[in-house]
């Protein structure tokens, strides 16, 4: 459904006075999602991952530059094609309830989302009722304003805005942040249900454990690039994980040993060679010479000289 090759996102911003500096936030991102699959993108909280969602929708700020190849349903995704698909075939589940207009009732906003995704005017009311019922929201919730919604309800309304249409690719940006385990599980259940109906779901989060509950494949994203792509089953123990960063991430979870064996990489380094060589325990001469390419190993992909 979606195939991304070598995506990079650069920002230019002012340093002082009139001087400008270019910062490369994402470099060499590779990703592909098939229909019916939930692909989780895991990485540090901050710039890179949310930018991916914005880049896929074409809503990056003006000072951003994108390079790389993105294909949707087999065809190149140009800005013009994106403008027609946005909202109708590619939908975003926003992160927080502040994405909703605080002055409009939520029913009206979901109806507008339905209208924008191409549903005809006369079908909109029934579609909206159906969307609300699907997420177990009472009829009167349609007349509420966003500030009246509790955390869990807000999450369900946001999901409804994205799924009320007939979008085939759903982007979920941090769907479980700030939620307690029960509500988070519910939100993830909705995503799994969407995937089971044949849609492709891109789940962007920093929380590995919640992602693993519903994901089929996991892309580990660090230092601005794809580090490993693995199946969710590979995360059962350290054995099947290939990249040192992924193994360190897994070991650092509280359910596992809760020890950080690797220093967290805070930002991309522009020097040659692998960005992890300063904190990796298995590094040697070849790691300092060239940045590794993404290689296929078994069911997944790894970017490491030694995998």
């Amino acid at each position: 459904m979606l195939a991304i090759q070598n995506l990079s996102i650069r920002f230019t911003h002012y340093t002082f006075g009139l001087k400008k500096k270019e910062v490369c936030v994402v470099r060499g991102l590779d990703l592909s999602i098939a229909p019916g699959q939930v692909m989780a993108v895991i990485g540090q909280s901050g710039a890179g991952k949310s930018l991916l969602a914005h880049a896929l929708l074409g809503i990056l700020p003006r000072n951003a530059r994108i390079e790389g190849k993105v294909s949707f349903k087999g065809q190149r995704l140009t800005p013009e094609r994106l403008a027609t698909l946005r909202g109708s075939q590619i939908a975003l589940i926003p992160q927080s309830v502040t994405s909703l207009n605080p002055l409009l009732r939520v029913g009206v906003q979901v109806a507008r989302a339905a209208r924008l995704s191409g549903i005809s005017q006369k079908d909109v009311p029934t579609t909206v009722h159906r969307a609300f019922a699907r997420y177990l929201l009472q009829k009167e919730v349609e007349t509420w304003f966003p500030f009246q919604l509790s955390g869990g309800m807000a999450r369900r309304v946001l999901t409804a805005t994205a799924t009320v249409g007939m979008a085939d690719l759903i982007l979920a940006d941090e769907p479980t942040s700030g939620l307690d385990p029960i509500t988070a599980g519910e939100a993830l259940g909705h995503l799994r249900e969407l995937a089971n109906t044949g849609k492709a779901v891109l789940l962007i989060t920093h929380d590995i454990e919640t992602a693993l509950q519903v994901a089929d494949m996991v892309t580990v994203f660090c230092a601005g690039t794809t580090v490993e792509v693995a199946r969710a089953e590979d995360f059962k123990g350290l054995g099947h994980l290939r990249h040192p960063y992924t193994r360190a991430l897994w070991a650092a979870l509280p359910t596992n040993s809760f020890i950080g064996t690797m220093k967290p990489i805070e930002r991309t380094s522009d020097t040659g060679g692998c960005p992890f060589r300063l904190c990796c325990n298995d590094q040697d001469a070849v790691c300092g010479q060239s940045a590794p390419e993404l290689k296929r190993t078994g069911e997944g992909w790894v970017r490491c000289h030694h995998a």
Partner: protein
Amino acid sequence: MMTNFLVLDRRTRTMMVILGCLVLFSGIFLGAWLYGEQGQVTNLPLRKLPPGWDRPFGTDWLGRDMFARTLKGLRISLEIGLAAATCSAGIALAFGLAAATMGRIVDVVVTWLCDVGMATPHLVLLILISFACGGGAKGVIIAVAASHWPALTRVIRAEVMQLRTSDYIKLSRRLGRSSTWIARHHLLPHVAPQFLVGLLLLFPHAILHAAGLTFLGFGMSPHTPEIGTLLAESMRHLSTGMWWLALAPGLALIISVMAFDVLGNNVRALLDPKTLRE
């Protein structure tokens, strides 16, 4: 510098526009200082002449050069407007800070005063105050200063109130910092850009109202060639076909007022954190 203006990036464009406006204002003040006194010289053989090569704005019924008179008038108008706007902004800052920080009663009183100020017809209030203060430059400045502060007060009050609920302000308190320290190091730097922009955007209002008051006869005395005076005098002569007597001062006033507006908006664009980093 000579490259296509639109090709330059946003921040450079903004700064060039700001520079342009500042050059315009300095030009007005400099021109008035160098050439303004020519406007007092009467030259009866050359009276009632339309604009020509050596008389860019023509001459009036006494033969006085309109260009010089306009320059001097513009300078006086700008001075009065700037003085009044600065006073007004100062009042707005004091009231806004007081309303946001000194408790509920002060807040209620200031808000009520703002509402009264905004509800009263502007021109009527101006005429009343100017008349009560005896007219002249003093009357105009007091009148304009006393009637333009409500809008900026509201902005400052809202900004400071919102700031005070921020987590980091409360945390600053818990770290042991006093109210004065917080006001000086946290609140004031945040409010300063808004205040500056508000001040710049007050100038057009103040200048126009000062000119308007003088036009109606409640401001400066007719002896000073303020723009309002020039416009008032030109009214009598319009029917005899001396269109340049009104057009020149009017156009000059509008252009300088718009320049302030453009300056204010560009400074705001420069200081806005969202566009600051683009």
